[in-house]
């Protein structure tokens, strides 16, 4: 009886430990273009709104990808959108990129309910700007199955809507992209002289 109780407690602890860590991460660290949340403001304008851009032409579409990972802290990719749809449940929705540059209306991409990571990635500099109009998330928990999957305790989802914007006539002002700096260089760039400092001082 004692060993049975130990086994039950261990199983419960393992289930809770694995499931509790589930969630969704939204990031766009691989994107080459701005992926903006909130009012579209530009740098250096003291809060000035950035110049409005038209919806991107079909040829200028940003490639958006979504990779989902599932639970028990094992980051195993289970699907990538928009290349494929998961055959599992559709609790996490990501809206793909129709030709008009507005991905709110089409190409819904469905992924499984367990722990996921949503990565918004733009391809090079093809589009100048992604403007997110809405991020809505939610979730439920229960010991009673709320969802279908390997772990039934968590149900976390996010829906993202936005527009892809580009200059008229494509991307004439596109800058050639330099190779990305290594992570350590991005995080800790060399100190540069600031205003009021003498650049030639030792």
């Amino acid at each position, binding site marked *: 009886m004692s060993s049975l109780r130990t086994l039950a407690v261990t199983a419960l602890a393992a289930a809770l430990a694995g499931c509790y860590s589930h*969630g969704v991460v939204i990031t766009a660290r691989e994107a080459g*273009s701005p992926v*903006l949340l909130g009012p579209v403001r*530009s*740098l*250096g304008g003291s809060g000035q709104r950035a110049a409005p851009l038209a919806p991107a032409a079909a040829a200028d579409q940003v490639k958006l990808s979504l990779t989902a990972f599932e639970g028990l802290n094992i980051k195993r990719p289970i699907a990538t959108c928009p290349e494929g749809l998961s055959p599992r449940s559709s609790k996490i929705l990501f809206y793909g990129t129709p030709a008009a540059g507005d991905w709110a209306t089409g190409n819904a991409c469905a992924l499984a309910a367990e722990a996921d990571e949503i990565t918004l990635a733009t391809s090079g500099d093809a589009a100048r700007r992604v403007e997110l109009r809405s991020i809505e998330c939610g979730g439920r928990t229960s010991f009673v199955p709320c969802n279908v999957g390997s772990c039934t305790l968590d149900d*976390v989802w996010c829906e993202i809507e936005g527009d892809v914007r580009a200059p008229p006539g494509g991307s004439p002002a596109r800058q050639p992209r330099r190779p990305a700096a290594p992570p350590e260089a991005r995080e800790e760039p060399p100190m540069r002289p600031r205003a009021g400092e003498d650049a030639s001082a030792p």
Partner: protein
Amino acid sequence: MTSATRAGLLAAALLATAGCAGARYAVRADHAHHPISFSPALPDADGRTLRLGEELEPLGSFRFSRTPVGILYGATGTTVELSEELDRRVDAARGEGVVNLSLAVSNCATGYFFPLNLLPILPGCQVVEVSGVVVARRRSAPVAFEPPTRTSAASRDGATRPADEGR
């Protein structure tokens, strides 16, 4: 089994499968005074794209969390407004914007209290962890760096951004 018993069992099953405490919410930054990007890039006033590690330098990173709460099994909606906190972080670092914004969403513990989570009035919640990097423009692009001369130094100082002052 009588029909009343069967109906009772069915009702209990429906109640059990519906009893999932949770929350739903919109994440917004509608009143932010600084540009905020999920990617390492931000636009400047001329529409050019500036990138972290190139034209943008990091001034510091931040992380904070919000806990939206819902009842009625998560049917009630709320809004997580990030504008004020993000502006405060940028101003504190004397920066100009936020890049690499990340939202990590997960359920929190209240929904696990079975059988309380069968009650529609039990508050469900989620944890939203927000992280990002405060940035400002470099005073000169790394690849276009030239030795300081009297003229170029004066022109750079003339274009000094307010965030540089006092640091």
